[in-house]
């Protein structure tokens, strides 16, 4: 696999993406909006002086950035693959001296990097603002901590990969970007279920649980990578994709 080729493909995808303002705005604005919304939730808890539920709230809200990592990349991946299918530009691309893996990796990098950077930026603002809001009540800075580190640096990227791989698989059967987006948004269901379980106190967002969840997502990613690479090959694309 030639990484230079994959980066060339990724750079082109990002250039195309930068000209699709709606997608680009969606990727940047959603994490920022969430940060503002979360800040107001925490501010009300701080105002009530409720320090016992504060850490649960902070962890749950941090985990929501993982949910976001499962949603945002799918919109880029859907556009990148289904969009290219609609524009009929896949066939000339596949006739170039690139491997299926390089094309898939290039598209995956483009679908992975902007949402993850945006989520990290949003989460950084969120953590800084939370520290500012809660420091007086807690008497210490809650962030950064190991839990947030695992959520943002391990689980969120794994969730993004999960989302991209499922979108690649779904894209082979879909013929419009909107459907691919809708299917992509469904990727958040398992992550959202964990969020609700955490918010309801059924599970805790402790380090052990987060590592177990990360392990499960990693295994799912590995299984899906096998499926997505077998779906994304020249023969399949040109003879079986709808």
């Amino acid at each position, binding site marked *: 696999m030639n990484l230079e080729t994959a980066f060339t493909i990724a750079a082109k995808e990002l250039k195309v993406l930068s000209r699709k303002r709606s997608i680009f705005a969606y990727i940047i604005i959603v994490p920022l909006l969430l940060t503002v919304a979360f800040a107001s939730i925490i501010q009300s808890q701080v105002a009530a002086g409720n320090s016992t539920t504060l850490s649960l709230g902070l962890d749950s809200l941090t985990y929501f950035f993982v949910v976001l990592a499962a949603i945002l990349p799918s919109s880029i991946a859907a556009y990148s693959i289904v969009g290219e299918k609609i524009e009929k530009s896949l*066939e*000339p691309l596949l006739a170039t001296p690139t491997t299926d893996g390089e094309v898939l990796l290039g598209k995956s990098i483009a679908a992975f990097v902007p949402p993850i950077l945006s989520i990290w930026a949003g989460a950084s603002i969120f953590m800084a603002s939370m520290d500012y809001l809660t420091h007086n009540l807690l008497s210490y800075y809650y962030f950064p901590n190991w839990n947030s580190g695992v959520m943002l640096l391990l689980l969120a990227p794994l969730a993004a990969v999960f989302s991209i791989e499922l979108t690649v698989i779904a894209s082979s059967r879909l013929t419009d970007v909107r459907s691919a987006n809708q299917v992509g948004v469904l990727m958040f269901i398992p992550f959202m279920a964990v969020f609700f379980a955490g918010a309801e106190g059924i599970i805790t967002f402790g380090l052990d649980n987060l590592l177990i969840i990360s392990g499960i997502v990693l295994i799912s990613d590995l299984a899906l990578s096998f499926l997505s690479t077998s779906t994304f090959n020249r023969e399949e694309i040109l003879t079986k994709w709808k």
Partner: protein
Amino acid sequence: MIETDNLTRKFGGVTAVDGLTLRVDDGEVFGFLGPNGAGKTTTVRMLCCLISKTSGSARIAGLEVGNKSDSMKIRKIIGFVSDNVGLYESLTAYENLDYYGKLYKCSEPRRKENIERFLKMLGLWEKKDDAAGTLSKGMKQKLAIARALVHDPEVLFMDEPTANLDPESAKTVREFILELRKQRKTVFLNTHNLDEAQRVCDRIGILNTRLMAVGTPQELEYSVGERKTVIQLDEVNDAILDALNRISPGKVTRDDSRLTVELANPNKENPAIVRAIVEAGGNVQSVSVTASSLEGAYLKLVREQRE
């Protein structure tokens, strides 16, 4: 440059290409004619290493189609114009070509030089900074051709390059193919436009799942179609008809003072026919030979296969 031997592709129980054996020489413009569903696109896709073959073999510049390491080498030396332009509509004309140049690992100076050369050749240089999506259909097709040439390929595969183009744009594309022919580029042209094939191709293959005929346009007209000698006389009488029927191997039809004789080889048989008419008292005004067109040859072959 391109050789196939019994190349076959099946999709489930359906045979798309059946035992294709042909050879395309270096610097030749080879036209592949056939009705929709004849297997033209499947053939090109196999040769461009986009899909696998079911059986048989194919080689491009000595490289084996279907061999994994050779496939990558083949893709480096070919250019491919698909039946859909498949451009990135939000990228400019220049960016579209530059991206493909990078994928073909062309150095930056070579990319710049080739992009400028081909955009100028195709009359698109002024549009280089326009988004591809804003170009007309004809311009997009020309840009797709430039994209396939940006790395100076040894062989250019074109799948229906003038389909859905207005006559003026189609003419520009045909002229460009003729320019490539002058430059001795090997071009494999899929088309169902007979006139186009006749104008630009050195040789033509007629495919309808199986290769039914191959040759120069003239060879196909002569070998497949019928040729007729048309003789205009002052007057046709029974003595002339009898004389002709005695010597002519072909069917003779009369239309007032004009006789039409179907012949396998008019050049060889015409002198005897004219001599017989004159000896029977006929006064010959003119003799002309009409060959059936490429269209006639093509339709005859396709119909014969259906029957």
